[in-house]
């Protein structure tokens, strides 16, 4: 019997041969050093590929899937699922952005935003947060996080995840707020960061950081100029909830809370934007 074809040796190794074929091969291999060596090489490949240690999915994956499903189920738009930002949309956006350089940014923006299915990739969509906040701030925040492809991260990695942004997410904020969860967000091709805080009485506070160049969508809500401590900023009020933005040249710092004490709110803003100067504040 001549030497066995490699493909057949592979089928033998993979248990994809009949009993008769297996017996023939085993008989040949016993008296053929070349085929013995080939079979050993194939077995080594199998063993090396299979030997990699178990890698568990990161914590938070199931929660993000479930939140996306809930978000899709609550949407009146049956196409909602297709609009969840994913790798494909980000790459489409980047490709389209290169075209924009040729046809002009304004034209590009109009073209992109009217596409609906992908417009939100380039927009910080606060409407999705503010529209449902009266029904539950935590759920509304989760929906916003999912909408912008949020991924739970270690707080220590936040700065590295968004190196272009200047912000802080301390473990505690003035007012006995304790940091709960931290997320990396994506706004088109840019990175963002969000962190949620809670305190003993069950109150919830969220911080969101994004590049100031991104378009913001407040839906039907109105964004008014305001002054917080030493900074000029903007704020949106929805019922008891207030979202305040301080925008400096590198970062828009947003805080969503029900804080009514302006001094406490100023302390929170200073803690998350310690390097933002009073003169930095400007409109979006």
């Amino acid at each position, binding site marked *: 019997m001549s030497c066995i074809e490699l493909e057949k040796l*592979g089928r033998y190794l*993979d*248990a994809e041969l009949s009993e008769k074929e297996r017996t023939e091969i085993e008989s040949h291999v016993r008296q053929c050093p070349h085929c013995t060596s080939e079979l050993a090489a194939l077995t080594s*490949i199998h063993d090396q590929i299979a030997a990699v240690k178990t*890698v568990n999915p990161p914590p938070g994956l199931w929660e993000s*899937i479930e939140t996306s499903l809930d978000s899709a189920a609550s949407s009146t738009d049956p196409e909602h699922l297709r609009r969840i930002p994913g790798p494909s949309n980000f790459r489409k956006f980047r490709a389209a952005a290169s075209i924009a350089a040729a046809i002009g940014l304004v034209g590009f923006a109009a073209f992109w935003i009217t596409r609906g299915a992908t417009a939100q990739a380039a927009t910080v969509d606060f409407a999705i947060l503010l529209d449902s906040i009266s029904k539950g701030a935590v759920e509304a925040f989760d929906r916003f996080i999912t909408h912008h492809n949020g991924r739970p991260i270690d707080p220590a990695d936040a700065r590295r995840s968004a190196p272009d942004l200047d912000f802080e997410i301390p473990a505690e904020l003035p007012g006995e707020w304790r940091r709960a969860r931290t997320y990396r967000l994506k706004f088109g091709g840019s990175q963002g960061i969000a962190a949620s805080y809670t305190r003993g009485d069950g109150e919830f506070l969220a911080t969101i950081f994004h590049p100031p160049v991104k378009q913001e969508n407040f839906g039907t809500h109105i964004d008014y100029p305001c002054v917080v401590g030493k900074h000029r900023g903007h704020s949106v009020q929805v019922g008891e909830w207030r979202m305040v933005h301080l925008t400096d040249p590198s970062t828009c710092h947003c805080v969503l809370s029900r804080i009514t004490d302006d001094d406490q709110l100023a302390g929170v803003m200073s803690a998350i934007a310690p390097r933002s100067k009073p003169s930095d504040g400007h409109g979006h």
Partner: protein
Amino acid sequence: MTEAEILDGCRRGDRQARHELYVQTSTRVYRLLLRMTREPETALDLAQATYLKVFTRISQFDGRAAIATWIHRIAVTEALQYLRRKGRDAGTSGPATEAVDSVSDNQAADVRMDIEDALALLEPLDRTMLLLRYDVGHDYRAIAETLDCAEGTVASRLNRARERLRFVLKNSYSPEEDAPSKHQIL
């Protein structure tokens, strides 16, 4: 919960059934995506996209293949589409080159790093074939169902992938590339 109960629950949108299906399948799906892309964040994105499709298209699952095979098919399709796009963006056929940072913590990891580096130099479909067979453990029929091709194609393609992997392990460059020494001479 039996597989039939899980599937029935998923079709009704039952949270517990969905979670059970996720728990039973996600470790292999995530590891497959991580080894196909070598990018942890991308693997996470693709895993999310996979399960969103699984749960929103569960009514299309006809039971002819195992549910795990059907899920792997969705995951592999997502990953191959990503790798093709990445290859187009980079102007290459797309072998991944980024290091996996989770496999360098002991001596045994050195061996694994070698095989991961070698797999990364293969074409995405060759890499997928080898992972489906030797990591996931699919037989040829399941691989054919996952990749929507004939079993005979699986045998010949696996053979080619194994040969290319052996070449890379021996020479430390892809058979599609020129040998490094030629570059050095030039």
